[in-house]
């Protein structure tokens, strides 16, 4: 019974962990602007993140070492350092977006400007990372994040024509007035939002933090194979309600408050309360994940002592890096830079750096010296190679599309 409960909690954590500010913004924005023509991107992204997280988790369970630790050993310090720089930059930028996301959710509840909430959110993030045990931290936001299922309930409430929805999903068309480059710009943004590199780093580090081993492969597979796809259902639900309610009115989603507008129409203040709880949990959880991931990336590369199970005195460089990253992210958020724009750029740059994350994982997951009988099988390798091609094409197209569309305008 205890094992089942642990499995269920882990899966819920993965579901909550899948959603972050990048998803909340891009799903609603794309649903309102492109209808259901990008649901296929969510399907592609969910399969990809599931496959690579399972690989990264398996590597960590088999070796008790994390991705960046093995990358340096297997691929050399130079290449690994480039990987660290790119991954740290994107993860820190994502942290800025997540801090803003929590602050925007507080603004939704209070109408107090989000910038006033940013320092408090940063302080809360610091407190939780410092004081709360790893498992409690993970499960609390994971379970509360399930409040976002209010978006799924809203889809049912609006009683859509399911046949039409299915047709729109399976026959994706670029809406009139939208150019092909803009469509592909947002397709890459969505891929980046749903295959965020930090999720893989965090999952892999979490396996080590939990002291999971080969005996815990069931937990690792349940978290990825169930958690992420159910998280994908949430993402599609947000796209669908935006498509049903916002697109017919010609509403462009530029604020988080517009993401929840369909839920308010459906369920009133109770719906809004659920949505706010879900958004706070999802974005706060992601702020913790991105902050810890930024520390993990650097600490694993340089071989520092790291982890929440280490006291700050025992892992001073790791702890200092976390504080500096958090202060830097909060300061950047306070520059009044548009939080929605920064979110779009963070997920977009995330997509551009995906090959840096995925190539080493695929290489190491095939190395029988490290993994023995847990090395990739045929299915994992086929998926791994196909997705490597997908993310490489997306990464190569990212910069030209960013310029030609003026950032998706």
């Amino acid at each position, binding site marked *: 019974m205890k094992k089942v409960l642990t499995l269920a909690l882990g899966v819920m954590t993965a579901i909550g962990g899948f959603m972050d500010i990048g998803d909340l913004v891009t799903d609603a924005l794309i649903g309102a602007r492109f209808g259901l023509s990008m649901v296929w991107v969510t399907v592609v992204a969910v399969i990809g993140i599931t496959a690579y997280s399972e690989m990264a988790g398996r590597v960590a369970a088999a070796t008790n070492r994390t991705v960046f630790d093995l990358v340096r050993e297997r691929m050399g310090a130079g290449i690994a350092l480039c990987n660290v720089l790119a991954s740290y930059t994107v993860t820190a930028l994502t942290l800025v977006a997540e801090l803003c996301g929590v602050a925007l959710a507080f603004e939704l509840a209070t*109408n107090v400007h989000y910038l006033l909430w940013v320092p408090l959110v940063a302080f809360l993030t610091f407190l939780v990372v410092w004081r709360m045990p790893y498992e409690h931290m993970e499960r609390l936001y994971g379970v509360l994040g399930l409040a976002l299922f209010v978006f799924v309930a809203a889809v049912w409430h609006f009683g859509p024509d399911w046949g039409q929805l299915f047709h729109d999903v399976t026959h994706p068309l670029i809406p009139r007035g939208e150019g092909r480059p803009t469509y592909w710009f947002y397709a890459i943004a969505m891929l980046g939002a749903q295959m965020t590199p930090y999720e893989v780093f965090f999952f892999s580090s979490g396996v080590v933090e939990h002291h999971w081993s080969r005996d815990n492969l069931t937990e690792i597979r349940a978290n990825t194979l169930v958690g992420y796809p159910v998280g994908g259902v949430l993402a599609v639900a947000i796209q669908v309600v935006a498509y049903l309610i916002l697109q017919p009115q010609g509403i462009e989603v530029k604020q988080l408050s*517009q993401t929840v507008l369909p839920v308010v129409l459906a369920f009133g203040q109770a719906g*809004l309360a659920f949505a706010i709880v879900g958004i706070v949990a999802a974005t706060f959880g992601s702020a913790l994940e991105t902050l810890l991931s930024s520390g993990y990336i650097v600490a694993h590369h340089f071989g520092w002592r790291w982890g929440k199970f280490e006291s700050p005195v025992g892992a001073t460089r790791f702890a200092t890096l976390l504080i500096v990253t958090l202060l830097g992210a909060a300061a950047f958020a306070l520059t009044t830079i548009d939080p929605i724009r920064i979110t779009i750029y963070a997920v977009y740059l995330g997509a551009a750096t995906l090959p840096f994350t995925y190539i080493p994982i695929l290489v190491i997951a095939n190395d029988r010296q490290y993994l023995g009988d847990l090395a990739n099988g045929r299915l994992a390798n086929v998926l791994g190679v196909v997705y490597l091609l997908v993310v490489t094409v997306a990464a190569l197209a990212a910069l030209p599309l960013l310029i030609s569309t003026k950032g998706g305008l």
Partner: protein
Amino acid sequence: MRSRHGIAAAGAVLLLLPACVGPARTEADYRADASNAAKTAISALESAQLTVQTVVDGKASAVYASLRLTEDEGEAEAAIVAFGSVQPPNEEMQRLRADVLGLLQQANTLLADLRIAAFRGDHGHLDAIAQPLQPTADKLQRYEHPGR
């Protein structure tokens, strides 16, 4: 080493390029700017209408309604600033500028009135104040899709 610096500088310039918005050089560019401004304002007006509907139906809290309407007003203001700062290439486009800016200003005033009423808690009158939103959005549609 020098070539590495060159690549880094070129990369930085490429990344910053999308942030640069130059003056509209042709009529087509200017019409596209007008269309974008109209689209943003229509979105703000429609978004405000949905928000008012939630208030009238007793579904939205005063806090949420105030926030939503403030943001819609901000969007309309941003459209005025962005479009107003672009230089019209000829006299015909200057007339277009006057027409579009007039409508954008009208939209902004309407949204400001709604925001003020919502802040005062005057929810009973929001519906009446919101009446001109749709006609204004309809007029702006002519500029969003000039060919229609």
